[in-house]
Structure formats: C-alpha cells, structure tokens
C-alpha cells in the first residue's frame, strides 16, 4: 500500500467525494444505486445470453455427474460378472453393461474424471506456457519478439497427433501426467500467439504509458497493468482449448495409445465399444456422446464469455 501522505489525502478526498455524490444520487432517485464493475457487467451480459447460459448449465451438469456418481452408484466399476454382460440400458443400469458385466453408468463417470482431468491439466499447462511465452515476447519486443514469433510461425499448424505419439514413445509409459505432457507439447502455439498480440495492444494504452512515465518498474507494469488485463482472454481460451485436449486424449486412447486398463477414459471406453459396435452399438455411443456434450457446451460457454468480456463484439 502507498504510504505517501499526499496520496493518502487525495484518495480520502476522492472517496468522500464519491460517497457524497452517490449519497446525493441515491437521495434524488429515491432508490438504492449500485455500482457496476467490469466483472459484474460481464456476468450480467453472460446471463442475458441464453445459449451460453444453457451451455454453462450443461457443462456443470456433466462435471457433477462425473464427480458425484462414483460415490452414490451401487455398482463396483471393476467388478467382473459375466452373468450381467451386455445388458442394454435400463432402470437398473442406466447406460447398460459391457462385455464383463461392468456398469457403464459409473464407468463413464469415472472415465469422465480422467478425460476432464487430463483436459484441465493439459489446458492449464497450455495456458502457462502460452502466457509465459506470449508475455515475454510481447513485453520485451524488439529482436527477441521477432525471433520468438518466427519460431512460432515455424511451429504453427504442425499436427499435434504425431508429436504426441512420439512423446508418449519417449516416456515409454502412458499415465495421467505423460498424457498431459504429450498433449501439451504441440498445442500451445495459438495461445502464445494470442497472448502476445493482447500484450502488444495493451502496451499502447494510455494507462500503461502513464505508469511508465511516472517511473513504474517493468515488473509492476507487467504484473499490475498488463497481465491482469489478459485475464478475460485467458478465461475464454481455457474453454476453447479444453475440448481440443479432451478430444486429443480420446483419439490417442482410441488408437490404443491411451491410459492402461483397468483405468479408463472416454476414449478407451469408446475403443472398447468400437470392437463390438455391430452387436452392441450403445457401448461406443455413450462415451462419444459424453465427449460431444463436453465439446459443444465448452464451445458455447467460450463464445458467451467472449461476448460478455469484450463488449465490442456485441454488435454482430
């Protein structure tokens, strides 16, 4: 906090003025007047967007299903009982059972934990690398920025799947964390590029110039003025990157390069179903629909967030 007495005085004066003005307005209007902040504004705009709101509800419902069902479902997800094999969906087994008689309602929820877990961990890693790379490049500028962007240009558009497969081969084992690294390694380019663009455009703002003019150090400008203002963009990108990571994991699992059994993700459940789709199509449909549900809801949430956090795009 600032301890400069002059600054303190100015602030106090401002607060008094503000509260006085507010008082007066409240008095004149005869009702409570509420201040709105940027975030409250964003929440209001987001709530007004029906598609985004519905998508958010769908997203939360899916997450709750994955979190809660394994605790309350009476069936053991790994218990093998061949007398119960291949039961089609019913009131006892909402999603039916697989070839070992395992309940798919609870297995899909557990698979969702792994899929969404890898999704969020991978997205977090992508954001971390993207923010680090993008903000260094954009903030330092000059030849470093030039070089870093050239490097990104070089890597841009490379398909992530071959590189993910090679990465898994390097580790030799597939578990939660190697999967996260494999899916991150060739997926952070877009985020880094967008963050860099945002930092560069923010740098031209008057408040940043003012901060620089009064002698603020670089770390204050970066951490106080620039990075907090990329937060909205970062939140949007979390929901844009999440589906990609989840889908990538599903693809790898489907190709047989996923997490080892008895653990299962939506991708490996789908692979399981694929081997018997002619006789029991519901086994592949259920985890695939879960993936589609996640992708679709995350996408609409991202869309709504973008509109809510950036009023300029509202007109379209």
């Amino acid at each position: 906090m600032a301890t400069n007495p002059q600054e303190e005085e100015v602030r106090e004066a401002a607060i008094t003025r503000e509260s006085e003005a507010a008082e007066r307005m409240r008095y004149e209007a005869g009702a409570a007047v509420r201040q709105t902040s940027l975030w409250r504004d964003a929440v209001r705009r987001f709530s007004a967007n029906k598609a985004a709101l519905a998508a958010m509800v769908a997203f939360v419902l899916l997450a709750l299903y994955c979190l809660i069902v394994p605790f309350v479902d009476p069936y053991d997800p790994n218990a093998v009982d061949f007398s119960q094999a291949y039961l089609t969906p019913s009131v006892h087994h909402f999603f039916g059972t697989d070839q070992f008689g395992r309940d798919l309602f609870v297995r899909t929820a557990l698979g969702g934990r792994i899929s969404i877990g890898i999704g969020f961990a991978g997205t977090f890693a992508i954001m971390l690398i993207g923010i680090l790379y993008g903000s260094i490049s954009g903030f330092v500028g000059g030849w470093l920025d030039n070089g870093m962007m050239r490097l990104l240009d070089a890597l841009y558009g490379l398909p992530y799947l071959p590189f993910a497969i090679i990465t898994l081969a390097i580790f030799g084992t597939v578990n939660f964390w190697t999967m996260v690294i494999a899916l991150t390694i060739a997926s952070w380019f877009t985020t880094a590029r967008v963050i860099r663009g945002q930092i560069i455009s923010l740098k031209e703002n008057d408040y940043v110039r003012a901060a620089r003019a009064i002698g603020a150090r670089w770390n204050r400008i970066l951490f106080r003025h620039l990075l907090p203002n990329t937060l909205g963009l970062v939140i949007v990108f979390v929901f844009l990157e999440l589906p990609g990571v989840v889908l990538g994991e599903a693809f790898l699992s489907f190709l047989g390069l996923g997490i080892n059994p008895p653990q299962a993700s939506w991708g490996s459940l789908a692979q399981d179903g694929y081997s018997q789709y002619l006789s029991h199509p519901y086994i592949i449909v259920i985890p695939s629909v879960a993936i589609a549900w996640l992708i679709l809801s995350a996408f609409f949430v991202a869309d709504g967030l973008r509109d809510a956090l950036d009023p300029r795009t509202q007109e379209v």
Partner: protein
Amino acid sequence: MLKFVVRRVLWTIPIILLVILMVFGMMKEIKGSPFRRTERAVPAAVMANLNRKFGLDRPWYVQYERYVRDVFTLDLGPSLVLRNQDVNGIVEEHFPVSAELGGLAMLFAIVVGVPLGVISALRANRFTDYAAMLVANVGFSVPAFLTSTLFIYFFAGKWGGFTGLPTNGWDTWSAKVLPVIALGLGPLTYFARLVRGQMLETLQQDYVRTAKAKGLRWRRVVGVHVLRNSLIPAVTAAGPLLGFIVTGSFIIENIFAIPGIGRYYVTSVEGRDYSTVMGITVLLSILIIVANMVVDILYGVLDPRTREART
C-alpha cells in the same frame, strides 16, 4: 510482390531445418533400440556392425547433417524393421492413398461447407440459419470415431443391402464415399462457420450499404461485394484444416481399414521403426509448412495489406 514471394519461400528453408532438428531430437530420446526386438541374443560385434551400418555410432550432429542431406535429396532412408524395404517405398505405397482421402475430404468440405455458410449468413437468426448452424455444431463436436462407426453401422451394415456401400477398403469408388464424408465433416463445419462469420461482418461494411443505397440488385451486392471479400479469409483456414485432416485421417484410416500413412504410422511407432516414424513425421511437417507458405503467398496476392506483416 516478387520480393515478398522470394522472401517467403526462402524463409521456409530454416523452418524446415528446425522442424527436422526437432523431430530428430525427439526420436533420439526414445528409449529402446529397434534391434533388441528379437529374443535371440545378438553378439556385441553384430550389434556394433548394425549400429555402424545405420550410422548410429556417429555423433548426433553428423547423423543430423546426413539425415537433412538425405531428406533434401528425397531419400528418407531404410526401414529399421522391415528388411529390404526403405521409407521411400513405404511412403510411395501409402501416401497417395492418404493424399486422395484428404483431398477428396477437403473438396467435399468446401463444396458443401461454403454454400452452407453463405445461406446461413443471408438468413441470419432465422430458422434456416439456426438449423444449419445446429447441424454444423453437432458435426463439429461429435468425435470422428463415432460418426465413422455410425456410418458403417447404418449405411454399410443395416442399410448395406440398399446402399451397397462396403465397410472398409479403398479399392472401389463406393468404398471411398463413407470415409471421405466422415473425414470431411469436421472441416465442413469449420468452413461453414468461418464463412458465416465473415459474411455477417462484411454485410455491415459501409461499401455494402453504399452498394445497396445506390440501388444495385441484391444478388449483385452479395455476389460482387460481399461474397468475394468474405471468401478471402477462408483461404487462411486451409493451413489449420490440413492439420485437422491429418489428425482425422489417423482415426478414419484405422476404422475403415484404409492402407494410408496414418494407419501405418501407429504400427511403426509400436514396432519402434524409428526411421519410418521420423520419415513420415518429417514428411507431414514439410507438407504443412509448405501449405502455410502457399496460403501466405495467396493471401498476400489477394489482400495486399497483409504483405508487409507476413514476410
């Protein structure tokens, strides 16, 4: 203009070198030698000879230099696992299949996706728009392995007698229908949404209002002023879409048992066939780098404002 093209083309050379170095470095990190796959005990001398034959005993930069030289003379080296077969032969056998699959899928996506986007934009926020965008969003979010499986289940299985479509292979035209549609569905929705967004933006431009105000027929306004300016940005989509197609082909080729490069790739990784994995990865990367270059140049030609920024 010439300067822009030359600079852009020259710039791809260090990019390709860098990507090869990256792939090369990653392949070096993979544990386990390809020669240890046999159960028989191999004498140390034989092992050393094998390593010498494939140049694995030299320092990494010598290997890298040799590899780059080979790549630029279009020689991807011998397969480490399949005797008497080299990577070139494998690529020549499998790549045309994948290229045909990808090309047809892209064509399908453009032919259906672009008109879909245009119609959606012209009927914005009406029933047609909502219906088209619903289809596009569902097509975008359902994973490729479900759409392909459902295609096989219904069109080749249940109604197979009626449609006459086979479930797998790549020999006849009828065998190509389902995989091409399954692979093209993702890019199709991408095109449709991109074109729709661009159209909506262009429709609000001043020159469109002017064209309308001076009494041009609506068809001419859309055809000349809106459509042309909206389709230019769609060109840039070709880069990411190629990556999309490559990724999708891995799945689709597996499901439809198509003898393409994506299916072969997975087998090669499991068999630790380093040189094949490396060769295919390098090939796909170069393909995408060159596609990005072509897109950049095309975009520079179509929209001169971007020339400076993109060199």
